[in-house]
Structures are given as C-alpha cells and as structure tokens.
C-alpha cells in the first residue's frame, strides 16, 4: 500500500532519538557455556535482542548476563498488558492509541516483532493470510520507552476474532479485547462466572469508535441508492446486471477481498449473514484495500463494499432503508449511528485491571483519543456538525412525511428550531421505554460538555424522539423525559467547570422525524434518541473550538 517504502527503514538505530539502545554488549550464559557480542537492539520482557554478526538473536534474560555500557540497570519484568483483537482493527488502532497514551506521559512508543526487530509500518495482521490461509496467530509488541529509549512498559498485541476473542479475555490470556461485536449474553455470563465482573458495566465496556462500510461504484455510475438487501443480492450473485437498477445492460463486476480475510468477515457479518446469503463464486478477488478501491476507480461496471476510509476516488452509494429513508455514506451519518452498515468498536476489560492497563483504559475513555482513531481510518466519536445541505434535504423530507397527528404548533416549533440550529453528530440512544443512557452515551455527555465549553454556542436544544410504538401522547412524554435525562447528566458534568453562557433547552418531539424505519427492532432503537442541536451565535465561534 505504501509506495514510499524506502522511507520505512526497517532498522531504527542510528537516528539520534533511538540510538541509545544500539550499542555493543556482551551477553554471557550464566553457566558459562557461551557468549555473544553484538549491538543491543532492545530489551523485551524476558529477552535481550542482540544484532550480532550471525544475525538477530533473542536471548533469555534469565540465562544470560549482560555486560557493557548499554546494559540496562533493571530489566523489564514481564509483558505489562496483553491486548487481543481482529486484523484491520487492533493492529491498526493500538499502535496509534499507545503513541498518544505515551505522548501524554512524555514517553515514546514503537512497534517491534516478537524477535525485537522494529516493525515500522509493517505491523498489520493478516498480511500473510492470503498465502497461508491462516487467521488468528499473529502478534507484535509495542514498547513504551523514555527519552533514553529504555523500555518503560511493554504491550503485546495479538490477533483474535470471533468467539476466540471473548474466550481469550475470559481465560485471561488477554487483559483487553477490541471487538466489533457487543458482548453476547453467553460470554457475559461466562465472564461473570470466571470472576471478570460485569462486561457491560461502565468501567469494563468502552466504545472507542464506529467502523463504517459502504457500497462503492465507479464515479461515472450515477446509481441513486441501494438497500442493504440489494447489496447482499449483488454480492451473492442474485442480481447480476446493472439494468436491474436502471443502468446500462452490462454485467456487475463484483470485487471482494479474499474470503479468509478479516475485512471480508466484517462485510459478511454486516451484509450477507443477516440475509443468509453467501458470496458469489465468480467474483474478482483482490488482495488489498488499495487494489479494491483502484478496481472500482478504473472499472465503470465495478462494485465493491469497503471500509468508508478506503474509498479514495470511488463513489460511495447512499443507503436506502426499506421505508425509503436515505442515509448519505459520510462521517456524520456514521457518528450518529443511523447509517446501516456500521459497527461499534468496543474495548472490554476484566474488573481487576490495574497498572498500565488501567491507565491506558482511562486514556481510552477520554475524547483525547479521537485524533488517533481518525488517523487509523476508523470513524472517531468526535463531535461534528451536519452540513447545511444535508440539514435542508432532511428537513424537507421530514416535513413532507409529518403524520396527521402532528399539530400545526408542534410542526412550527420543530421547523423553527431546525432553521436556527445545526444538528451535532453526537446522538444519545435508549432501551425501549426507558430513559437510561448506555455506556457510550455516558461518555458522549463529556464530549458534548467539552463542545459547549469550547464553542460556547448561544443555545443548545436537546431534542428527544421516540419510536412509533405506543400512543402519540405517551411518546411525546417519553421523548421529553429522555431529553430531560440527558439535560440532568449534562448539567452535572458541566457543574465542575463553572458557569457557561449557553442556554440549554429540552424538547419532546415524540415519533416525529424518524431517522430509521419503525418496522423492525433495529430501526426502532435508532429512533429512540436525543439529538443535540446547536445554535451558534457568531460564525467565528467554531474557530474558537479549534483554538482551545
């Protein structure tokens, strides 16, 4: 993927910042049987990594004695933390998040393979999968180092997915897991029985990001929208010609990543499995995300599903739900969690986490990770505003769809609120009939509090909505109760930082303006929400958000 590989030098020594460790040492076996002289590349828990004239050697610290100026005064005792997760997720996210975590403590981090050779950018899992077909056996180390390049902490990141992922947490093989699926009731129970505590509790469940996917076509293909079912029909080979969508009479050229890749598994889980379909047999298989987007950029009849951040110049196709609501494939829709093809990226940990693991999790809980998440190509939870264009398009369709039960004054209030404010991407969601915030929502409160402190908007409207189940009047009450619940949490979060000039108001709009279809549980869950609308008094105010 990187064409500038000549800059990705494999060896880190020689540079000033890291030259410290690359020094000659002599390692002598404690039983006197042999000794090795070479440059000490690094020290990892339990092993010295030495580059000698016979190559890079990894020698057990228990069996060898180190002599030479570069020998450390004390050895790192053990791996401090083990993190497990799938390819394209844990392997991409962890090095970046750890860099941020280290930087906060004025430390540095770098990635090494298990033999201690610096990996540069070559640490992605699954690079050998297409050759060997094996998933789930790769691992690398992240060392957190001080200015002198002496290791302070060591984090082992290893590949695991599906049921293996939660098993590795439950069996305590790993301390943290990065999952694209919420914990299942079975795993929750098992974890509890194994003394890991409640995986659904605030302290043990941390939503870091959302990972969104989109159907893509060639930029010249003007296909208006697709439903998830239509995408699954194309991928499975049930729809094979563009004429089905009013296009030219030409075969749809489907491109996919290899079936044994983790990226394919995610697409399978989001699109094919829910409809019990399988991928077509005669698709074009490409080996990297880059090849996938290039295929679509160059093939006017091409079709592929890919991670949103990989689309480059290919065209993402808007997603249509079965009741006709259209979601644009963009960052804003993914952050609101109203777009259909996305997963939450969640970290789970046992209740007995301590030391560097606890400190890392504290960092993961803060909005300070958002910049690093964005850098990884996954959508962060940072607060962004809806575009004006999208706002008016949505308002137009909302007004057109307003049910007869909405009276004129409600409609007027809704429209006037909408016209003076801009919706923010952060959206709070609830269980059926309840006004309890989930763990993600509780942390989003802090993000909105920070937004208010930074931007100091003139007014914030907390707009509560309900699904279409139940009576109209009851839904209005319920939606207002939800908005008030968010207000309570927000006020208590903001109390500590002193008064602000922002007026915060609540509204209960009941089942008006649905963002998803009320015909299925997933759609109804999306409609049970509190949106945050911001009225910014001066056009410069958003700049201030950045300056702070």
């Amino acid at each position, binding site marked *: 993927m990187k064409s*500038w590989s000549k800059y*990705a*030098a494999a060896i880190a020594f020689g540079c*000033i910042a890291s030259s410290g460790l690359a020094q000659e040492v002599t390692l002598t076996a404690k039983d006197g049987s042999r000794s090795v002289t070479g440059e000490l590349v690094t020290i990892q828990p339990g092993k010295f990594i030495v580059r000698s004239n016979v190559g890079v050697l990894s020698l057990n610290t228990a069996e060898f004695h180190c002599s030479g*100026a570069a020998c450390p005064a004390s050895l790192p005792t053990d791996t401090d933390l083990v993190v497990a997760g799938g390819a394209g997720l844990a392997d991409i996210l962890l090095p970046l998040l750890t860099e941020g975590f280290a*930087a906060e403590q004025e430390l540095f981090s770098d990635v090494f393979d298990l033999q201690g050779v*610096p990996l*540069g950018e070559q640490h992605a899992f699954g690079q050998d999968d297409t050759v060997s077909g094996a998933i789930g056996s790769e691992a690398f180390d992240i060392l957190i180092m001080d200015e002198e390049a002496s290791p302070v902490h060591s984090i082992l990141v290893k590949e695991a997915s599906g049921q293996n992922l939660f098993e590795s947490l439950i069996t305590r093989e790993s301390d943290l897991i990065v999952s694209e699926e919420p914990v299942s009731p079975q795993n929750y129970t098992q974890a509890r029985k194994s003394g890991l505590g409640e995986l659904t509790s605030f302290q043990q469940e941390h939503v870091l990001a959302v990972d969104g996917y989109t159907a893509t076509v060639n930029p010249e293909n003007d296909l208006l929208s697709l439903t998830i079912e239509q995408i699954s029909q194309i991928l499975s080979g049930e729809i094979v010609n563009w004429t089905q969508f009013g296009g030219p009479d030409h075969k749809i050229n489907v491109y996919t990543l290899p079936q044994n890749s983790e990226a394919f598994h995610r697409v399978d889980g989001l699109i094919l499995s829910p409809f019990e379909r399988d991928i077509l047999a005669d698709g074009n298989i490409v080996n990297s995300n880059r090849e996938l987007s290039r295929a679509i950029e160059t093939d006017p009849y091409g079709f592929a599903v890919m991670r949103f951040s990989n689309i480059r110049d290919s065209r993402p196709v808007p997603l249509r739900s079965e009741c006709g609501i259209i979601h644009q494939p963009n960052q804003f829709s993914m952050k609101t969690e109203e777009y259909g093809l996305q997963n939450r990226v969640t970290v789970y940990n046992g209740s007995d986490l301590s030391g560097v693991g606890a400190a890392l999790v504290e960092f993961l809980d803060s909005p300070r990770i958002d*910049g690093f998440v964005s850098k990884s190509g996954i959508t962060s939870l940072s607060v962004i505003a809806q575009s004006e264009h999208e706002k008016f398009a949505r308002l137009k369709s909302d007004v057109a769809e307003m049910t007869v039960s909405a009276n004129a004054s409600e409609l007027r209030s809704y429209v006037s609120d909408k016209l003076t404010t801009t919706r923010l991407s952060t959206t709070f969601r609830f269980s059926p009939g309840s006004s309890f915030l989930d763990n993600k929502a509780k942390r989003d409160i802090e993000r909105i509090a920070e937004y208010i402190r930074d931007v100091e908007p003139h007014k914030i409207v907390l707009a509560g909505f309900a699904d279409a189940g139940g009576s109209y009047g009851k839904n209005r009450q319920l939606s207002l109760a939800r908005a008030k619940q968010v207000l309570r949490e927000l006020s208590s979060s903001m109390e500590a930082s002193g008064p602000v000039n922002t007026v915060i108001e609540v509204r209960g709009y009941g089942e008006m303006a649905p963002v998803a279809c009320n015909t299925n549980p997933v759609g109804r869950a999306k409609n049970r929400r509190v949106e945050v609308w911001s009225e910014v008094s001066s056009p410069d105010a958003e700049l201030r958000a950045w300056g702070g």
Partner: protein
Amino acid sequence: MLNSPFTRLCVAASIISGAVTTASFAQEVRLIGKDSNIDVIGNLLSSKDGKYLVETDIGEFVINQDLVTCEGEACPTEQTYVYDLEISAPDEIAEVLVPIIAEGYAAAALEAEAQLYDENGEPVDTETVDVGDHKYGEEHDFALQLTDLEGDDVATFGIHTANGARLFERLAKKDASIIFTETAARKADRSIVSESSGGNLRDFDQERVIAVDGFAMIVNPLNQIPDLSVKQARDIMSGDIVNWSEVGGSDAPIHVYSFDPDTEAYHHIEKLLFKKSDKTLTNESSIVHDRTELTTAIMEDVAGFGIVNYAAKRDARAVPLRTTCGIVQDPSLFNLKTEEYYLQERVVAYNRSDIDGYARELVDFLDDGSLDGLVAKAGYIDLSITSDSQERAAERLVAELEEGENEYEAELVEDLLKNMNTHARLSTTFRFAPGSKRFDNKAERDLMRMVNYLAETKPSEVVIVGFTDNKGPFDSNLLISQERAQAALDHLVEVATGGELEGITLKAAGYGELEPVACNDSPRGRAINRRVEVWIAG
C-alpha cells in the same frame, strides 16, 4: 576602569564566592545535610563554584553547597549584594547571548549601556568571547552592569551559569527569575517550579523559544565528501572510522579536531552524538581551545574533521547530513529554521510566573521584533522568516515520481510538484503533538511573526500545506493533513485582526505522508514530519 561600580562589583563578587575571606587560612566547620544524613566536621579549605572543599580525618571532600548548611566561623557569609534581576543560563549563553539581549533591552527601554563583568570583576567582551575552553558543570557568577549615558548606575543583573536540571532548580528556588536553556523543561522540571509557586512552564507567558542552535560537521573546502550520517560522524569522533575512504572519500587518514571532553562546547556534541553510548572521543584527536582555533585548523588541514556551531563554521565546508532513510539534509540556515536538520537544539527562555520589575520588562522584550537581530549577533540562529525556492525538495520528489508505481499517489505527487514549482516555502513550520492540531507556544508566536511578515511582503497567494508522519493508512493521513492545514489557516485568519492579510489569496492543502523531511523510523523523525508548511507565490 577603576570607577565606583567596578569596585563595588569586585567586592560583591568576592563575597559571592567567599574565596577571598576564607581561603587563606583553614578553619573548622561543620557541614550538615539538608535532606540527607551528611554530617562532616573538618577544615574548610575553599568555598567556590557552589562547592565546599573540606579536609577531614579521612581525607578531603568536595560537597555541593546546596546540599548542606555550613556551621562555624569560617563559613562564608551570606551573599549581601542583591541584584536587580537574577538570570541563569549555560556558560555559552550566559556570556554571549544573555548580555547581548540585555544590552538591547537596556538600550531600548532604559537608554542605558551594559557591561558584563566576571566574578573577579574583570570586564568581559561579549562580542569576542569564545567559550570553547569553559568546563561543563562548573558554575560561575557574572554581573551585568547597566549604566546611563552619564555613567550612573541604573541596575545590575546577576547572571549565574548552570546546566541541565540545575537551571530549573534555580528557578524553583527563586535563585533565578529567568533561565535560558537548550533542554526543554521536562515533567520533573515543571513540577518543581510549580511546587514553588512559580507557575506552569507550559504557559504562553512562561516559555519562549528565542532561537535555534545548530551543529555542523565541518571539513576542509577541498574535501568533497558528499555526505555523512550521524553514526559515521560518531564513529569518526570515537576513532572507529579513521580513514576518509571508509566514508566515501579519498584514501587519507582523518584528523579529528575537538574541544576538550570536559568543556561545555564538547558536552553539546556528546549529547547529540554519543548519547548513552560507551564510546568516547578518540585519543588521536587534536584538542582545540576555541571555535576559531577549530575552524582555522580545519581550513589548514585537508584531512581535518570537526563539529562546531553552525554560526561559527566560517569558511569551512559543512558536510550534508544523511539520515537513516537516505534523506540528505543540507546544514543551511533555512533548514535549521524549519527545525528539520537533525543536529540542532532550541534555545528556550523560561520565567517564573511571579516576576515583576526588570524581569517582567526583559521577558516582554523577548517578544520584541528587535530580538532576532540580537540573537543573530550573538551567533545563534534567529526565528525570523526566510523563504526557499524548494528546488532540492522538488528534485527529490521527481525521483520518487519516477519510481512510483501507484497512480493515486502519483497524481497527488504531480499536484504537489506543480505547487512546489510555483511557490516558495517559508521557514516558519508549525509542528504538532501526535494526533493533535493544537498550536504550542512556539507555534503561536511564529504565527504572529508570519502575520507581520505577510503584511510587509504582501505575496499574492499563501497556501497553508499540511503533512503527516506515515503511521496509519495513507487516506486518513491525507485527510488529517488537510484538516490540520485548514485549522491552521482558520487560526491565521483569526489572529490577523488588523487587515494584514487583505489582498492575499488564502488556500489550504494537504498531502498526507508524502514528502517526508525526516525519517519515519523514530519518534523524533515522525515529530518532524507532522507539520504544516507555509508556501507563498508572487
């Protein structure tokens, strides 16, 4: 020179050092540790440079004065002379940069002249002083006497030399209200200052980067060796490489010229080259005593090699530096100002938050437009803005384009190249913490400089161009670089409230991890690559 301020300074200096009154006859004193269980009784032989030398039954000891309290008649009396302002800095800065800045301040604010005196009361000529011989770690006192045009006393500033963490200790103990350092405050340094109610050294008003100081690997102009890596320079200095043919030159022995390993001048080179290494300076080297002697020796010796401050290289040839990933950095003024050259340090001024009077005024003067001229006069590289045609960088990109196999990048590179050919780059470069788009104190001040520069030069177009390191996918880096550039542009517009940018077309662009200026294989290299550049046209 036997006028009254001089005599008084002489007395003051002798009290500070305590040497004159006590060194002539030894007397019994008791030294008791402040935070430790030191308890020594013996004859005080001398008391200078912040250390006591005592003779006891079991031998002679040297004890740091800060660590103990001295009891007995022979103990030096407390310093009685109170300076109007106390400054601490490493020797080179204390004897050259600080007096020149203070002189500029005195002339501008007080219409006064300044003269530096050493601890023996001898005047020091700050413009010719060459500190190659000064020992690292020793602490000395200087006094800077400010007199008005009639020759009357205005004020006296004390300048105490110290190094590394000692500087921050002095700031914390209120022994100094302003310090100058080439090592940025670390966590521990900041915490001792804040514990002493000295404020937060990260505050905009307490931290000022006033200059950069670079080091050049110099050879005789007849020696046309293309470049050297940091590792090769180290191996030459340590004697592991002894012949020019080993580094791509002709077959001739390398003659190393160096400062004495005990000197402050050598300490810089040690810090940059030998950090945490068991290597030391080769025994074969010829020791020189000041920078002039070093450059003169190199000019006279075709096989000579030395490392010297960039501003002091004179006619010697500065060899380009080759990084671990093959990027070659010319030791040019422009590259030093962009902070992309590897062998360089920042000169930072820190002050306590509770300053007033002269300290307050001097600190404010550090933000004055006339500072850059004084910094340059002192032989440091100032932060004034210069521009560069980008020819070298464009050449490098063309080479990459020819090797490129990837269309998407190739298109971007072509676009980048087109802009490089039509735009000059300014030396001001904004850098960011990983994952952040926040401006640090230096960046905020650079932004103000840039607003003034643009108001004066009025280019027709300014493009703010973002770049990232290579961690993470290409596309997200592209996006981040564009966002950073846009954020920097917005901030520029926000700061320029006086119509300075009128008539200038402003644009933002981002090229992700393309065109690295340092190697992405180390945290420091990545930090150099996370940047926003400023390009101008017309």
